[in-house]
């Protein structure tokens, strides 16, 4: 999985920014990247924000994708730019002790 690894605090701010970008345009909050706690591996305790190319080019509405919104470029820059993305094992974000 490709995306950004960051702190829970930064992740919260990024997700708030994505939500606000939609609400400020009079739209409902219909799309976000989400963020996922990292339970294993070198980044344990951080969070993962998925940001592969497919996610960043999701068809949102009127033919627009997230990359057509300036807020997306702001949060990508805040996370270190596209080159700062890393690939992590999906097992790293699986809660090892979920209740069945």
């Amino acid at each position, binding site marked *: 999985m490709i995306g950004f690894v960051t702190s829970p605090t930064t992740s919260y701010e990024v997700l708030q920014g994505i939500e606000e970008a939609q609400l400020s345009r009079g739209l*409902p909050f*219909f799309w976000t990247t989400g963020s*996922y*706690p990292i339970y294993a591996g070198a980044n344990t305790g951080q969070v993962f924000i998925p940001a592969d190319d497919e996610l960043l080019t999701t*068809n949102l509405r009127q033919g627009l994708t997230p990359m057509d919104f300036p807020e997306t470029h702001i949060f990508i820059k805040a996370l270190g730019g596209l080159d700062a993305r890393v690939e992590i094992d999906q097992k790293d974000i699986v809660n090892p002790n*979920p209740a*069945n």
Partner: protein
Amino acid sequence: MNYSLGNMLSGGMLAGLDMDARAYIAAVRATGVSVSATQVTAINNFYKNCKSDGYYTSLKRFFLPIWSNASANAIDLIGLTSGTFVGGVTHSSGFVRFNGTTGYFRDNATVIAHGMTASTAHAMALVYNNPATAADFARFYGAYDTVDATKEITAFSVTSASQSQSRIYGVIAAVNVNSVAVSLQEGILLANRSSTTDHRYKISKTAGFFIDGQIANLSSSTPPAAKMAWATRNSNLDVPNTFYPADYGAMSVGISIGNNALLNTYISRVKTLWETCTGLTLP
């Protein structure tokens, strides 16, 4: 001016349609989506049939994610509110594909806010394709409480045992419904609770019901203070886990649809709506 009926419908003239159908179609078109005359008719029929069948007001949220864009797919047919797509979701023509690791869809109201109680609840997912690569206990849909395990409404696969299970605020030991291969757990999944003791779970396919069971669920627990999610389960803390990799074509949540006959009628209405709108066939 002399318009054919087809031109009138596909060209945006929606006079004569059910008022709610008209509003939904207009909202979908506002996202840049083209809605064909065939789709308009199918959507209109769905609204009218649900109202005449008597369970329209039981549907607190209904989503039809067939439009190839996130905004249109997130529109609730009932109140024109919006859910939220999160993470790895591909918006295809006819369905959305959840990647099984980060992708899910979240309603933006709690099941409690929908009026769901220990005696009235339903949840539905139209699963067009289930690739059978889900982890044990992966959820088709769900809302749960992180502390009290009896406060969960969900359907899921037990991959290791080839079982499909449903819980509506149920204790874990009381929820086995049927043994069925994971790859066959597709079609319309509908769980309904019409009283504190009547909990039914169905998986309906084109060939008929694959699971059609009544569960003696005596739990009188209360619903979780969580928002319903599909392709995972969402907690009262808004943290999802147990993701399902599958393709979904419709979802609903709300209070009880009604008796067993009405459940079957509702399933047939959803099937007709989705198949007519997409040109696809339910597995």
